């Protein structure tokens, strides 16, 4: 698989550019709740930030908008050089297949697929390149130290190994941006630190930008900087 996305990001120098992004929900009684208030945020091509804030502060909303799974009410969102502000649902689906990676809080691997097949899901749902995707999956598993676990089901892997498979899955489509949603919340302190070290190493080596959503101030030092969000307002 080529490094097209990462290359694009490198050329532009910017992996993510949010400008005055606002998300407002209208409730049943007609009142409005501002989930994200005119947020502006820029990540360079290999920058890794920690997005910190209490529950309900807007972290999830910001991540969802940056990852193209939620549309903003207003504002501009550019990821890996692609402006997704006006994208339709179908265009956002294609964008997610090609430009972003996700590592979810509860890992959420497909339980009946092996580690290798979990990586290949990304190709199956997206470009379907076949051979090149298999080569990339094997390469990622090797780099993540999971080559000997490629044929294991998630239930046969430890928590840390599952998290590594999830990281491999997020990297399969060679994304411009990876979103980590509380990546260490299910791990003990030691394992959490190991996983954060691995995330940092992988992101920096590949030149991929990352947002790490976390409650845990102890892991923020693995990131280049921390961005706080409170009641939908970003506080750098």
């Amino acid at each position: 698989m080529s490094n097209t996305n990462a290359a694009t990001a490198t050329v532009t120098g910017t992996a993510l550019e949010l400008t005055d992004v606002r998300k407002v929900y209208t409730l049943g009684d007609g009142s409005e709740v501002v989930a994200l208030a005119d947020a502006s945020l820029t990540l360079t091509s290999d920058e890794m930030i920690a997005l910190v804030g209490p529950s309900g502060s807007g972290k999830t909303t910001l991540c969802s908008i940056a990852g193209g799974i939620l549309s903003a009410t207003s504002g501009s969102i550019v990821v890996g050089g692609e402006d997704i502000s006006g994208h339709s649902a179908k265009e956002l689906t294609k964008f997610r297949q090609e430009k972003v990676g996700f590592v979810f809080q509860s890992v959420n691997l497909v339980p009946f697929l092996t580690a290798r097949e979990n990586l290949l899901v990304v190709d199956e749902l997206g470009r379907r390149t076949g051979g090149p995707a298999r080569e990339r999956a094997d390469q990622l598993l090797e780099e993540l130290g999971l080559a000997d676990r490629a044929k294991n089901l998630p239930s046969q892997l430890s928590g840390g190994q599952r998290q590594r498979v999830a990281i491999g899955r997020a990297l399969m489509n060679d994304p411009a941006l990876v979103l980590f949603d509380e990546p260490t919340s299910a791990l003990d302190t030691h394992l959490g630190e190991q996983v954060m070290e691995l995330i940092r190493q992988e992101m920096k080596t590949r030149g991929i930008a990352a947002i790490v959503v976390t409650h845990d101030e102890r892991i923020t030092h693995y990131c280049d900087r921390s961005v706080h969000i409170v009641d939908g307002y970003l506080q750098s």
Partner: protein
Amino acid sequence: MKLALLELVRRPGRFATAAVILTLIAVLLMFLGGLLDGLISSSTNAIKAQSGDVIVYSESSQASFLRSRIDPELRSTVESVPGVESTGGIGIVQLGARIPGNGPRDLASVALFGYEIPPNGVPDIPADGEVWADEVLKADGVRDGMELLLGPARSPVTVIGFVKDTTFNGQGSLWASPATWRSVLADNRPDAQLADGVFQALIVVGDADPAAIAADIDATTEDATESFTVPEAVKAIPGVEEQQGVFNQIIGVTVVIALVVIALFFALLTVERTSLYGVLKALGAMSRTIFLGLVAQATVVTLVAGVIAAGLVLILDAIIPPGAIPLDVSASRIITSIVLLLVAAVVGCSFSLRRVLRVDPASAIGTGS
């Protein structure tokens, strides 16, 4: 789609409950269909076997042999109709037959036909006093060369061989010469006896469209006759359409039950997988891909259930003694049942479509479970 099929292979136990229930429903469907086909065949085979094109009854007989009379004069009129090549008289009497070796009250129900044109599978007209017997009568103890005593008059007829698929009204048929039939009818049903040359119905062999010939015959006889093509005559047999209607309604309800089972099963499965679908959608899966996966799973489970059920019904058909119940298991019935179940599977799955569409990929983020 590939994911869905992999899940089926890797986690077959997950689909076992649905597969077992669908197998039982498929067995029921095929068994009911086989019973319907068997019942209809046992009622109509003698008519289906007719080698002619048109069957002519007298007016107001409502396709009943017992109510119909065709005298020589009417027969001549029928024979004068353009397109009619030849005619053959046919008559029937339904009686109890005493079979040597069986108890005095252990009568076999038989339908004795007198015929002039041999039906398909029935040899030429036997000598007077002799009959060809349908092989279903073997279950009652009838054997080649045996002398049967028919009706209260105990009219003797000798079995000289067996024929297949000629039952009528659920009774085994005996095929005799017109003279034998006329004599047995007169001895046992004096009120219904017919003079020489008079038959209950005519089998017409024509050289034109059977429906047109039937219409021309009725027009020429000025509606002194009621003529049917052979398929029409089969349907016109009293009780046949009613039987078909009842069974088809039961089969329809069974298909609806299958549909509900599939709909419920896959609706539950969808609810259970909501978080997984959220993750897959976040990774770029389209709702269409996920829904087609569900349909593929339902189709495969139904197909497997259908094949197992077909095997079970064929085994059942093999072990049930001939003549015990009118079960007729045919390939077309099995295929029709499986196709009906597959349609039910796809329709049942479609109830989960809305739920799949509503799964929000955003649900994958910000949840710990």
